[in-house]
């Protein structure tokens, strides 16, 4: 199995390499680059394999390399949040036609009462029962490696141009919830009425949550990397498929 997987990965590498070469050539970087060198050129590493060729997305044991950074991100100011949940309602009503905060891609309700730790610890708590501060949880539109996308056995989490939001392709999603277990910030939602995962897709640049906030607590901004800044809510428990993991080591080994 491993060998077969390895072979698949090699094929994939070669194919990807050619494509990368083409793209880099168009950027004036036509030197032959190893993939590792390529990744080091972080300023230019905004290219997604998935976007380069749909054929590459097939197969379960390829490394999913989403390198195109997102163009936008929703930022939150907890000091302004008034806990009304209009963001959660706008996210689901105006996108899904139903009010369902449990599938909202901005998550506020889980922090409203006691803060992100979820347990009452007296006035040391955050939230309505603590000091009043409500943390709004938002998708980081992660840079590579994108945990939810990597964990998906069907490569259903793809980059959607032009904003390059990481989105769930409902046609590929089989509802296994592995993505939910992979996100350190627990930002994946699961719509059990549709049996599909869902996540923030930036509403094509006009986020409904930002528009709906009556306290100006949300902002739509140029993408920035918050993955190192925002503490995780959970230890991810999704396991990277071994074949993918092997491929990742190739790039990420020192």
């Amino acid at each position, binding site marked *: 199995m491993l060998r077969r997987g390895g072979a698949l990965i090699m094929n994939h590498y070669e194919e990807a390499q050619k494509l990368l070469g083409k793209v880099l050539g168009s950027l004036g970087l036509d030197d032959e680059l190893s993939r590792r060198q390529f990744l080091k050129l972080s300023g230019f590493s905004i290219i997604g394999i998935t976007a380069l060729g749909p054929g590459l997305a097939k197969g379960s044991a390829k490394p999913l390399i989403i390198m195109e950074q997102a163009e936008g991100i929703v930022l939150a100011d907890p*000091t302004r949040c008034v806990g009304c949940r209009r963001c959660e309602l706008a996210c689901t*009503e105006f*996108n899904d036609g139903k009010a369902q905060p*449990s*599938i909202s891609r901005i998550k506020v309700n889980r922090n409203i009462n006691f803060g992100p730790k979820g347990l009452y610890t007296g006035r040391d708590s955050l939230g309505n029962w603590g000091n*009043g501060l409500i943390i709004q949880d938002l998708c980081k539109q992660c840079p590579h490696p994108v945990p939810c996308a990597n964990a998906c056995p069907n490569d259903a989490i793809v980059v959607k141009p032009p904003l390059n939001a990481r989105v769930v392709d409902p046609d590929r999603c089989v509802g296994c919830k592995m993505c939910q277990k992979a996100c350190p910030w627990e930002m994946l939602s699961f719509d*059990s009425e549709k049996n599909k995962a869902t996540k923030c897709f930036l509403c094509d640049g006009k986020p409904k949550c930002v528009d709906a906030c009556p306290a*100006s607590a949300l902002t739509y901004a140029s993408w920035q990397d918050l993955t190192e800044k925002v503490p995780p809510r959970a230890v991810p428990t999704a396991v990277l498929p071994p074949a993918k993991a092997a491929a990742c080591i190739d790039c990420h080994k020192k």
Partner: protein
Amino acid sequence: MAKHGGWAGKVLRIDLSTGRISSEDTVEKYKDVLGGTGLGYKVLWEEVAPGTKPFDPANKIVFGTGPLAGTGAPCNGRTAITTLWPTCWPKPLVASGHMGGQFAAELKYAGYDGIIIEGKADRPVYVSIMDKKVEIKDARHLWGQGIRRTTVELSQQFGPEVCVAAIGQAGENLIPMSVVMNAYSHSAGGVGAVMGSKNLKAIAVHGTGSVTIAGKKEEWEKLVKLHLSLLGANNQHVVPSSPQPWAEYYSPGSRWKGSRGNKWGASEPAIDTGICDPHDLNTIAYRTNNAAFYLGDIAWKYTVRGNGCTGCPIRCHTMIKVPSVAAKYGISEVGMNTCGGLNFGRSFFRKFPDGARGMTSMEACMVGMHMSDDYGLWCNYSQLQRDFLKLYETGIIKNKLGEKEFNSYSWDKYEKSDPSFLFELLPRIALKQGELATALGLGTGYMLETWSLSEEEWKKDNRLSYWKMGHPKHHASEEVGQCGVIINTQYNRDPQCHSHCNFTRNGLPLELQKRLAAETWGTQDAIDALGSYTPMNIGKARMAKWSLIRKELHDSLSLCNWMGPWVASPLKERGYRGDDSMESMLYSVATGDPKSREELDRVGERIFLLHRALTIRDMGTKEMSTQHDTVPEWVYNDQEKRPAYTKGTTHLGRDDVKLAMGMFYEEMGWDKTTGAPRAETYRRLGLAKVAEELGKKGLLG
């Protein structure tokens, strides 16, 4: 997925005597009354026999939400709780308490539009509703605990997103002046003891499901934004309280307190509320600060932020942080509530050494909020505190109590308006300790009866604001003349109707209000300037009818009658018009059942009429004009003995009020003399069976 938009689809029925849990189809069985109070009145009409007492197992408690609860329609956080009312005197009749918070939305997401609680558990229990999983569980470990601890313990068990509606010790001890409360500060008065009588400590609910919007999502988004654009501040005050660069008008009495320089001072760092231009829908939450409205500018420094119900941008529960109370009184330095709840502790005192808007007053608020919201005490629209003041100042407390009990209170502290006095009084009310506390916990009517005091005396005193049947006025003649009087005669508790005063107190100049009044009620004479009343006319009767219908509509749709209706708006370019069809537009798009304003108003009238029918049936008389719709003496009195309808007075003429009631009855299709609805009125509104039943008892108009 629900079959209809708006409604979750099921009404839950829980029999605490047998432990049987069942559900019925909301739309099939209750669509004609929408939900909320409509659901409550219908269940009581069909299932609770006349003569049942509030604490009998045969009484039922109906937690009702409506099709808009849990949606993004602004101001939809309300749950109406209908039951036989324990403070309704001399005979308990139907009434409703209403709470905001998160309960309504969570119940809807769990898949239920309402809960009918019946019977009585043989031991303390709570109900947990986790989506479709509904269970009755042992609550002996929670019995005796306050609302706060009960909520925390159930949250630890069911997770941080659970919404707990609980009673405190007051409800357990069957103190009629008790509440059920959810989401830290959102309570419904009068209901606590009825839950206690059923051994029901709490309902914990969390839902992960959805409320479907039947219409196109783009259409819904547009409608919601229209509604948001028409909102004012709390109580639909549409002009700011101070001059603003964008504002043509301002009114110091407005709850629209946001202004550049007014900061949420206890936010870290502080946040300037800014100019709050009404066209900026992203600053609506900065308009209202009810702490500053009631406690004065001193409150800004202590304001953390606004808080409130699910989906409401108004945030009328202002969160304040007052560090001094932690060391001084041993209570949490953060607290929140609105109106009567915010003022619970403060209202026991006539004055404070540092003035009505000083620190002592604020500290009294903090102590009062924390104690009453934990013990689960109800203020009955601050009648509890007004009664206490009257009893104390007239020496009744001293006369009635034995020396030992009287001396057990630190009256010297009370005389100095020391908030720590509340630590002596409030727990005793909740725990039924001593004659004074027991009497106060009964509610005004039964308190007067117990102490052989005259209700007539209470009805004469302008400062008491007492109306009838154990309850006070709630926006009556002193604010809205004859229309206010009519509204205050109709219920079996304070009416909790704001349709009328949300309009008359919106802050717009009189000529603008009159223009909007003419468009809505057919004549600009429907309203008067405050303190410049004119005799009764048909416009005022129409406005009263409209107000009552909209109140019931709001309480059945789950829209907040502390915010709507939306006849006026803050928008100059609309001539300050709102949209009087807001309710029907929201209903139609959310449910997919298109109804015009007139059609939906007919449903509201049906619901109101059902309340009337229940009242008549349970009173056993059709003589409503003389037996029920009574007006207290103070309405006719002016302390300076000036004639009615002269400038600066708010009292009314006796004959004119009689005329007003008659005009209102006619407008409603009720008998002009008795005030009992006629058979054809019931039939016109789809209540032929109700008419039939009342007809057999000779109770038709």
